[in-house]
């Protein structure tokens, strides 16, 4: 899976004693559960249905109520959850063996029927947000109560990765969807308590979770606080214990607050500003290269993000399958001017479209880029639009450069490549089309990680050369927590996972 220079950069909070306790499963169980943790998340959870969203905050919250078949660690290793083992039988068949002795919150046992039900439901009910990802599933068959075989219409190497985001439901949920999700049950470490839409959700510890010693608190509350300054204030006032998506500028204030700790880790996210590749003048490779050369990424990283970002060396961020180090893109305004001259592009004027308030400091960064491009004679019109309008404009092709980012969910680059660099995926977005890349993406869908790594490295190189996007920086995820929390892990995927976290 490539080199993992960053995997050591796992940031564990908490005392040595807590770490020791975590290392010995069962030790915590003897101590018993106590206390309550309140987390403040930046994004509102929209649904209790694990198949009906692609939101990071919903994934975080619902991971406490439902277990998936496969979990993913912070260093991007896939580890057993409800599935004990999984392996490909051939390019289009996966076999999962299931954990025994697991039961749902109402006491019914977890079996292969749950897996068959959950997978067929997400494939067949096309109303569900995740349905389109699972259309490649041909069939799901149980093999006794504790094994399942999944056959797919074409190779589906990223299936285990996708399954980390899909909580398993009891087959009884099928009788009446709406009633079930009023008071849902799963096999997870917490039971559902109550939910006020857009405000908060209460969870209570499940007494008989299959992982011993977990959870470590009695009650868990997630509050949804989109306003950054409010999240920070609530943490500083001691009202909540953990917040996500802290801005670099807030770190100083938070570090100066007694009882508060700040944690950061390189995120599984590359910022990517994509070009409208069917539109003049940016469909000219020389113009794209010139724009790339004129942007001083180090200024953005050091001066605007205060070092809380990393230079990009590959479209796929480090740690993930498909990453390889291609070196940083240079900053060379002189060469940019030459290239623009060669391309015969004078008096260039570009529309740079932003989705309002979506990415931290985006307006500042866009203004900085406008100034940098101004230096080489390119005029940038910043168009900071409401999200729905911005996406409408993108579909219509009314932009030159579009400010966006890609968090590599679900820990596999197949989605990113398949969506943005195939003809059908990109036709209403960037208008990218390259048969070589298309073929490599298809070849990279097989289960064999060695084959995939090799195909993806080839794609990386082609994209690096073609510059269909500007990759300005990898994001750094910043969290702030109360120093009472034990064993909190700052996740690279922005999840806030608290089942193994205790409170003093």
């Amino acid at each position, binding site marked *: 899976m490539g080199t993992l220079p960053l995997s050591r950069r796992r940031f564990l909070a908490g005392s040595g004693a807590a770490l020791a306790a975590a290392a010995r499963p069962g030790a915590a169980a003897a101590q018993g559960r106590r206390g309550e943790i309140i987390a403040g998340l930046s994004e509102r959870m929209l649904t209790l249905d694990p198949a009906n969203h692609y939101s990071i905050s919903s994934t975080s919250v619902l991971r406490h109520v439902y277990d998936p078949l496969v979990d993913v660690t912070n260093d991007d290793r896939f580890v057993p959850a409800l599935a004990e083992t999984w392996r490909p039988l051939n390019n289009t068949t996966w076999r999962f063996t299931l954990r025994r002795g697991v039961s749902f919150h109402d006491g019914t046992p977890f079996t292969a029927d749950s897996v068959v039900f959950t997978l067929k439901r997400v494939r067949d009910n*096309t109303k569900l947000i995740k349905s389109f990802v699972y259309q490649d599933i041909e069939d799901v068959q149980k093999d006794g109560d504790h094994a399942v075989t999944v056959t797919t219409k074409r190779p589906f190497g990223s299936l285990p990765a996708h399954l980390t985001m899909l909580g398993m439901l009891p087959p009884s949920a099928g009788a009446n969807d709406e009633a079930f999700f009023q008071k849902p049950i799963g096999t997870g470490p917490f039971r559902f308590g109550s939910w006020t*839409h857009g405000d908060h959700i209460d969870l209570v510890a499940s007494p008989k979770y299959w992982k011993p010693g977990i959870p470590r608190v009695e009650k868990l509350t997630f509050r949804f606080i989109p306003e950054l*300054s*409010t999240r920070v*204030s609530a943490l500083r*006032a001691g009202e909540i214990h953990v917040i996500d998506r802290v801005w670099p500028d807030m770190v100083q204030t938070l570090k100066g607050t007694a009882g508060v700790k700040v944690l950061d880790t390189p995120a599984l996210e590359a910022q990517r500003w994509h070009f409208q590749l069917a539109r003049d003048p940016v469909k000219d490779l020389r113009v794209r290269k010139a724009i790339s050369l004129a942007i001083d990424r180090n200024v953005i990283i050091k001066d605007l993000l205060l070092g809380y970002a990393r230079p990009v060396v590959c479209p796929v961020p480090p740690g993930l399958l498909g990453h390889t180090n291609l070196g940083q893109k240079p900053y060379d305004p002189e060469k940019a001017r030459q290239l623009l001259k060669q391309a015969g592009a004078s008096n260039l004027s570009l529309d740079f479209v932003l989705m309002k308030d979506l990415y931290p400091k985006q307006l500042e960064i866009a203004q900085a880029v406008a100034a940098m491009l101004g230096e080489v004679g390119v005029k940038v019109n910043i168009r900071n639009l409401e999200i729905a309008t911005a*996406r409408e404009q993108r579909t219509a092709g009314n932009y030159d450069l579009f400010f966006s980012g890609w968090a590599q969910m679900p820990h596999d680059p197949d989605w990113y490549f398949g969506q943005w660099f195939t003809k059908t995926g990109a036709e209403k977005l960037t208008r990218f089309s390259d048969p070589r890349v298309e073929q490599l993406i298809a070849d990279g869908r097989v289960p064999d990680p060695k084959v995939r790594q090799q195909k993806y490295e080839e794609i990386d190189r082609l994209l690096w050369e073609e510059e269909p996007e500007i990759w300005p920086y990898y994001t750094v995820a910043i969290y702030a927590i109360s120093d009472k929390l034990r064993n909190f892990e700052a996740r690279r995927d922005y999840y806030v996972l608290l089942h193994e976290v205790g409170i003093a």
Partner: protein
Amino acid sequence: MPGDPAKMLLPEGAPQSAVDELNRHLGLREPLWIQYGLFLRSVARGDFGQSFQYRSPALRVVVERLPATIQLAATAMLLTVLFGVSIGVVAAVRQGTAYDYAGTVLAVLGQSLPNFWLGIMLILLFGVTLRWLPTSGFQGWTYLVLPSVTLAAFPTALVARLTRSSLLEILGQEYIRTGRAKGLAEPVVVLRHALKNATIPLLTVIGLQIGTLLGGAVITESIFAWPGMGKLVVDAIFFRDFPVVQTILILSATIFVVINLLVDVLYTILDPRIRYG
């Protein structure tokens, strides 16, 4: 309205086929007038449709927000009337004194400080530094203090200025002079006679502010993570969650009509000379 609900629900990199499929399920492939007709028919049956973003009945999503919305609006209204009228009366009676100027400055600040500025400063002072009051959320009366003060600042200032100017006008009129000449005590003149006559424009403005407080507290609600209707409707608009938007519109239009009818009725009670015909 431009924008595509399915696109807002699906992740940024969802294929167009998924967008089309979801729009079909949401009933958005029909021509607009059919959609609207269907909506009106179900509203008549008490069904406001399903919220696109929450996948729950729109009416429930909206009604869930009512308690917090009403508490905040009512408290802010109370503060507005209490402080707005008192500051205005003092400023008018003591026209040209230090009280009057202090009132003016206070009112100017109330009118020109952006809500978020006041809100964040209050949170930093009373929530973070002094820790007297909770910073955000909705759990008990202590949670109401900071948001309602923030929300009341603007209408209080407006009401104070209006009270002052209306009172000054009336205090100059003959029947007041007559009252004074007859030897009525000054407080009686001001409170019984003048203030009563100044209420009509005040009442109008206060009536209008109630509506603003109910649905327009967007910034206050987001600064204090207050689960009210103002933020809900704006989020719903951005999300193109049409059922929720329509439900709130119907609800708030009703509230407006009722409140302003009440204000009109109050006019005739306060001033029997006003009649409608």
